[in-house]
Each structure stands twice: as structure tokens, then as C-alpha cells.
């Protein structure tokens, strides 16, 4: 069999002959993609409202998860620890606004971007200093998240679904729906969109930028916490997570930096694409494709659709 057959025909034959494996791969990809989408969502929230590309979003995921587990490990009851972690994320938003954003207001974007690098290393340092650098186990049972797998006999095989993944999908959907309503229907949501469009105009109608920034960073912190809980439950809670968080960058390129639906669709495309590619095409080139697949897709998008699937097409009136 020629290589052309192996690349263009054989994978589809496999999909057809073993639909159970196809469905299983799609599901796994979707779950992974959802977590990418959540990280990307955190980026989008902050970028929309303040034009800051928050490099620290990935680390905020780890930091939130680490705080939760760390508090539990020193004897704080699980739900109290969850509440305290939410408070810590609010505190972080407040401190970031005071110490990072406010002094740098009106500085070029690149300065703010670099400041978020600083924030990243600060959070890594602070997290390791307070809670230690060793990998920790996420407290899934204590938070009453389901455990184990359900298996279905279907499509001539067995499809196995982790209950935790289903819970993650449900909670993530509810959170995204909540954010969507929040953005489109409330006074604060309208103010957020206003700030995203024009700082000067927002100030002139009496919107306080400081307040809005605290709110978006807090929202991004909450998204980070939810992401951290589910991601931590799939592996361990450690700073190794932030490498995976970088996968959010291709997701953003696909979805567009300012689009919440874009972040979600982009995340799912990358997640599913990555798994499919690894499973059906990976063996041809020795596997390990999920380390680079997302970035190659991003490159292709940059060539042909640089504003992303849902990004704002930049039209200048001249």
C-alpha cells in the first residue's frame, strides 16, 4: 500500500469500520477542547475589556487550583476552601488592578503584555513559596464531583465516558451561558462592552474603568478556578499545567481574540482535531503529534484568516 493510500484513504476506512473508536476519539477530543476553550475564554474576557493580552491566564489556572488544594491540605473543609479560593481570586484581581494596570494606564500594549509576564513569574513564585512545588491531587470527591466511568455498548464496541468529564461539560456550559447573559443583558455587561470599544467614551458616560477591570479579572479568575479544578482532576495539580495552557494561544488565533463563541468553537476544533490527528494519522509519523498539531493549525489560520473565525474584521474608514 502506497503512502497516499495510508494518508488519504486508510484513516477514513478505519473510521468507517470502527465507529465506536471514532465516537470515543471525538468525545475525548471534545473534553480536551473544552478545557482549552475555558482557558481561551479567560484570555478573551480580559482582552475584550482592557486590551491586555494576559499571558498569566494559564498560570492563574494553576494558581487557583493550587490554592484550593493547598488550603484543603492544611485542614480547611473543602467547600470553605472553595469559597476562600474565590476570595483569593477576587483579591488577586483587585491587587492586579491597583499595582499593575493602574500605574501602567495609557502605556503601549506591549508594556502591559510584559507586565503580565512579570505577573506570571510572581504567581509561580508565590504559589511555590506558599504551597510547595510538588504535584498535588485535586480534591474531586470532597467537592462531590462524580468519579468513575460509564460504559455503553454501542456501534459494535464499547464507549467509555468519564463521569467527571460529563460534569465538567455541564458546569462549563452553565458558566459560559451565564457569562453570555451577563455580557449582553446587564448594566455591568453593557459597561464592559463599552470599555472594550472606547476607554474615553466609557469614562465620559460615567463608567469607572478601575471597577470594570477588577470585575473582568475576577471573572477570568473564576473561569481559571473552574478550569483548574477539572484539569487538575484529569492529571495532577502542578506548574506543568501551564505548558498545556499555552495551547490556548492557537485556540485564540482560530477563534479571534475578542470573541467568546470563537474561544469555545476554537477550543473544540483544536481539541477534536488534535485527538483525531493523533489517533488516525499519528502512527504514520511515529506519534506525539499533539505537541505541535494545534500550532500548525494556528499557522494555517494566520495565513488565510488572520482575524480568526469570529474575530472582528478590521475595517478602517479612510
Amino acid at each position, binding site marked *: 500500500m502506497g503512502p497516499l493510500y495510508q494518508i488519504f484513504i486508510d484513516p477514513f476506512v478505519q473510521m468507517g469500520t470502527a465507529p465506536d473508536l471514532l465516537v470515543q476519539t471525538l468525545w475525548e477530543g471534545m473534553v480536551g477542547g473544552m478545557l482549552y476553550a475555558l482557558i481561551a475564554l479567560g484570555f478573551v474576557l480580559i482582552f475584550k475589556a482592557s486590551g491586555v493580552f494576559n499571558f498569566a491566564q494559564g498560570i492563574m489556572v494553576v494558581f487557583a487550583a493550587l490554592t484550593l488544594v493547598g488550603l484543603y491540605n492544611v485542614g480547611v473543609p473543602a467547600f470553605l476552601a472553595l469559597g476562600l479560593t474565590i476570595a483569593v481570586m477576587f483579591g488577586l484581581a483587585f491587587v492586579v488592578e491597583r499595582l499593575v494596570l493602574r500605574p501602567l494606564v495609557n502605556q503601549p500594549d506591549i508594556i502591559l503584555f510584559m507586565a503580565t509576564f512579570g505577573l506570571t513569574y510572581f504567581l509561580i513564585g508565590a504559589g511555590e513559596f506558599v504551597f510547595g512545588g510538588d504535584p498535588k491531587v485535586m480534591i474531586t470527591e470532597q467537592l462531590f464531583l462524580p468519579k468513575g466511568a460509564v460504559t455503553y455498548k454501542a456501534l459494535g464496541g464499547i464507549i467509555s465516558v468519564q463521569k467527571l468529564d460529563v460534569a465538567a461539560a455541564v458546569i462549563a456550559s452553565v458558566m459560559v451561558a*451565564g457569562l453570555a*447573559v*451577563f455580557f449582553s*443583558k*446587564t*448594566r*455591568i455587561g*453593557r*459597561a464592559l*462592552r*463599552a470599555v*472594550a*470599544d*472606547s476607554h*474615553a*467614551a*466609557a*469614562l*465620559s*458616560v*460615567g*463608567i*469607572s474603568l478601575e471597577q470594570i477591570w477588577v470585575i473582568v479579572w475576577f471573572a477570568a479568575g473564576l473561569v481559571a478556578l473552574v478550569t483548574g479544578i477539572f484539569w487538575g482532576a484529569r492529571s495532577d495539580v502542578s506548574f506543568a499545567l501551564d505548558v498545556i495552557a499555552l495551547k490556548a494561544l492557537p485556540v485564540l488565533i482560530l477563534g479571534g481574540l475578542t470573541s467568546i463563541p470563537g474561544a469555545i468553537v476554537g477550543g473544540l476544533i483544536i481539541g477534536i482535531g488534535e485527538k483525531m490527528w493523533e489517533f488516525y494519522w499519528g502512527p504514520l509519523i511515529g506519534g506525539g503529534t499533539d505537541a505541535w498539531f494545534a500550532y500548525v493549525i494556528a499557522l494555517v489560520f494566520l495565513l488565510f484568516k488572520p482575524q480568526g473565525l469570529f474575530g*472582528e474584521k478590521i*475595517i478602517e*474608514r479612510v
Partner: protein
Amino acid sequence: MRAPGGPDVAVGDVLLAVENVSLSFGGVKAVSDVSFDIRKGEIRAIIGPNGAGKTSMLNVINGFYHPQQGRITFKGEARARMRPHEAASGGIARTFQNVALFRGMTALDNIMAGRTLRMHSNFFWQLLRYGPAMREEVEHRRRVEEIIDFLKIQEIRRVPVGRLPYGLQKRVELGRALAMEPELLLLDEPMAGMNLEEKEDMSRFVLDANDHYGTTIALIEHDMGVVMDLSDRVVVLDHGIKIADGTPAEVKGNQAVIDAYLGVAH
């Protein structure tokens, strides 16, 4: 129509006074030692050649710039500096020289954004769109529709403002400022870049807003014809210094003003 907070000012009394305000950026003096006042109910024009410090003055009044010296008294309350959202909640609204709208939002949403400070209902009701929040939303929407009718922009309600032609964008921006029900409305070159017909429309809206809503207006304008027709009193700046202050007729005859505009032989 009155803005929240602060005492009422009777028509004809001083609403806002600028006293000995100086503002510089590094070594460049944008405004030096300027004093003038704006009385309740009047249309006050601020004119001057390019670079005279007019926009800087407006930015000081609504808190975008903080003057190094001098003070601003608004509704009897003196302060060294104003913060933009304080100015807004105190009843000062403005438009911008280069139109600053929320481009991604519709004309309706832009004008609704002007109501931000007047919405008080609880956030959770707003999320549910029920109860007090719904009643409040309906009430605000009614006020906004009034303004839309007033400015005759009914048919562009649902259009994202980025797509509108410039003249209409200026009108939406005026609508957003009016939606705040301001006591003092600052207009930075409301007719810049407009053709004659658009200028006439805009002049009528400015006069009507002043008449109909009793809004005090301070405007910067380059078109002398417009300034002379619209304004009750005019203050003239040149190189950051006040060179004249009075009725349009007085200012027109002032030698310093003529020199500033036409240049003077040295």
C-alpha cells in the same frame, strides 16, 4: 431634568467656574491661568485658533486632565481636580472631537450606555430580566426612544455605529450624551467635517436641547457663523491664554481676537 446629587442652580447663576487654571505637558503650556464661568441655561462657546487649548480646557472640565494649578467649582462645590466618572455622575456629559462611540454596539445600545449611571436595580434581577430590573429597563428604554425621536435617528437604531456615516455618528454621540440628562453638556466641535445641511441639522439639535431640556451647553466650534448664531457668550483662547470673553458681538469687534485669527504684523 436634573442630575443626581448636588444642589440645584437657578437659571442664570454660575453653574461651573474655572479659576486660574494652568495645565502643562512637560514644558508645553496648554492652558495658562484661564478663568471663566458657565451660567445655568446658556450656550457658551469656547473658540480660538488651532492649538489654543480649547480641547485641553474641556478635558480639564470633565476630568480627563488634571490641572497643575487653579480650581473648578461645579454647582458650588470647589475642587482641584475632577475625576471623569465623578464629573459624569455630577451631571457633566460630553462628546468628542473625533467621535468616541462604542463602535461594535448598535446606536440604541450606545445611547442606552448613557443611562448607565441611572440604572440602579440589582444585578441578579438584571440577569433574570424580571421584576424591578425589567421595569427599570423599560423606563430607560422609553427615555432613550424619546431621544432617538428627538434626533430623528429612528431608522438606524439597530445598526452598529461603526457602519454609520460620520454625520450620523456625531448625532448618535450627541444622543448618548443627552441620555445622561446632563446639567452641563460639553460639545467638542460638534459640526467638524459636516456639510452645510448637516451643520444646520446639528445646530437645530443643539438649540433644541438647550430649549427643550434646559441643558447648559459649552461648545468648541471653528465655524464662526455657527458660533455667532448659537451662543449666548463666547470665551476666546489663544496659545492657552484667555484673550476675550463676552457676547458674540463684543468678541467679534475685539482687536485681540481679530489679531489672533488673522495674524498681526510685528
